[in-house]
């Protein structure tokens, strides 16, 4: 479904991503591990078309997307849930969800169905429907950000650090929901610093360091790997 070949991305004068190649198949649940500044967010923004790679190719559903504009990539079925709970803070929860469905704004029935689905997944969003998104708690905001990303009915969901700055109990709750989303058929690429959480729910993982993939493999092997344990699990 998603294929990166030797992708490099610059940010100003500095090279952030140095020749990353990876592949994600339909239905996969894959994690991208890496510490602060490893380039996870830059890599995700490159895949979503917000940043353009200076080298290499990105292929999504068999089409080369590295020169496409971000809105066209969203229309192809890729949705990015940006890092740091980006929301429209002064719009209601409901309107934030509607914004997520912007690319299919003529499909009223489909939007209604999707709203029903995400409200079933995150019942709190139904309760807080009319409240301003900025007044939600951190965990609720993250749920809303994920729900909004789902509103475009994506085939591939890029989740950029959903656990950042949240209490452990809420992280667990969100991890369960993300797993449920994958089980319902959405392919998910999850970027995390919280390797413990990510490796428990995903099937496969990549480890990113200084802009390069230094390791990849099944999650249950990575979790026992000495390098990963030392660097990310504090063991």
């Amino acid at each position, binding site marked *: 479904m998603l294929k990166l070949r030797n992708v490099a991305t610059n940010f100003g004068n500095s090279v952030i991503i140095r020749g990353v190649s990876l592949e994600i198949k339909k239905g996969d649940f894959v994690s991208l591990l890496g510490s602060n500044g490893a380039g996870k967010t830059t890599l995700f*923004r490159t895949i*979503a*078309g*917000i940043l353009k790679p200076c080298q290499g190719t990105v292929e999504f559903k068999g089409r080369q997307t590295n020169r496409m*504009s*971000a*809105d066209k990539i*969203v*229309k192809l079925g890729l*949705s*990015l*849930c*940006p890092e740091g709970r*980006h*929301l*429209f803070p*002064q*719009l*209601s929860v409901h*309107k934030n969800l*509607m*914004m*997520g*469905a*912007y*690319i299919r*704004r003529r499909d009223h029935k489909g939007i209604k169905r999707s709203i029903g689905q995400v409200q079933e997944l995150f019942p709190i969003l139904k309760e807080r429907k*009319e*409240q*301003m998104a900025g*007044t939600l708690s951190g965990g609720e905001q993250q749920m809303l950000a994920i729900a*909004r*990303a789902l509103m*475009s009915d994506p085939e591939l969901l890029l989740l950029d650090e959903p656990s950042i700055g949240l209490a452990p109990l809420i992280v667990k709750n969100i991890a369960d929901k993300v797993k449920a989303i994958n089980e319902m058929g959405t392919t998910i690429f999850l970027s995390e610093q919280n390797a413990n959480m990510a490796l428990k729910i995903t099937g496969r993982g990549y480890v990113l360091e200084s802009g390069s993939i230094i390791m990849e493999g099944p999650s249950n092997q990575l979790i026992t790997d000495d390098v990963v344990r030392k660097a990310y699990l504090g063991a």
Partner: protein
Amino acid sequence: MKYNKFLKQNWLYLLLLIAALSFPLVISSRYYIQIMITALTWAMAALSLNLILGYTGQASLAHAGFFGLGAYSLALTTKAGLSFWLALPLAGAFAAFIGLFIGLLTLRTRGHYFAISTLCFGVIVFIVAGSWIEITKGATGILGIPKPTPIPIPFIGELSFTSQTNQYYLVIFFLLLFLFIIYRLVNSLQGLSFMAVRNNEVLAEAVGINTFTTKLLSFVVTNFLVGMTGGIYAVLMGGVSPTVAGSNLTFFWLAYVIIGGVATMAGPIVGAVLVTFLMEYMYSLGEYRLAIFGLILIMAIIFFPRGLVGVFTRLYQKIKDYFGGIRGGGAGQNAAKSRKANETL
């Protein structure tokens, strides 16, 4: 029951509408009616400026330029014999068409650079209007624009626009039309995308909004509306001169939007009417009025960043919460409601 609820929610707007409609019937002074006509024309210009500046977050300083394009377009076409009712949308379309090309160029820049490049275009229109004597008649301008073509009404006769009262209602009609268009636009998903671009471009792109075409659309609609406003102004004044494209007009409208309330429906109208009447009231002070005007503007930016409308809604909510708290004891619920009521980006 349904009507009762409607009245309860919108009593203020209905009251204002009645006041606006009965204004020339109650006030007999031609002087005040004329000021009101000018104020409401400026309100229309400020409304469209609010669309690109307030809702989309792009400070276009070419507003008077497009106003001038519309005014000159209407002057030339009606003098050539075209009916006002055809010439007016044509004036809007002309401004929008030029706006499309200017937008394609200038919207590639951001923030201050967009403001500067649009300001340049505004100045170019002003200079061309003053120098292209064969078409625009230079500094004297085009005079003797015919009044709007009368509309025939069966059995009653025809509706002409020679009287001041009827001109007032013409302006009110277009003001309401503009309000309706902007209200529908801003509350649609398309309008939400304007605000999304203003608030967070990265997020806007992540949800699949093409930020450039969204800005361009907002710019074109804005210029269509202000082009029409220019046309209405030209027909009411009976003539145009290069001053209609002067950048000082843009700055006045900008001030109306800021004083009234950026990105609110009522703000531009409140700002335009209040400031225009205030300026008239202080007429004897001459040029010194601008100093007072500047002071008001600075105070507004520092103390009321959401303008007079923002101050008013906050006061209204506080009063409502206070009384709601006494009556129902549900202060928390009311607070949640007020958060919803303040839902503007």
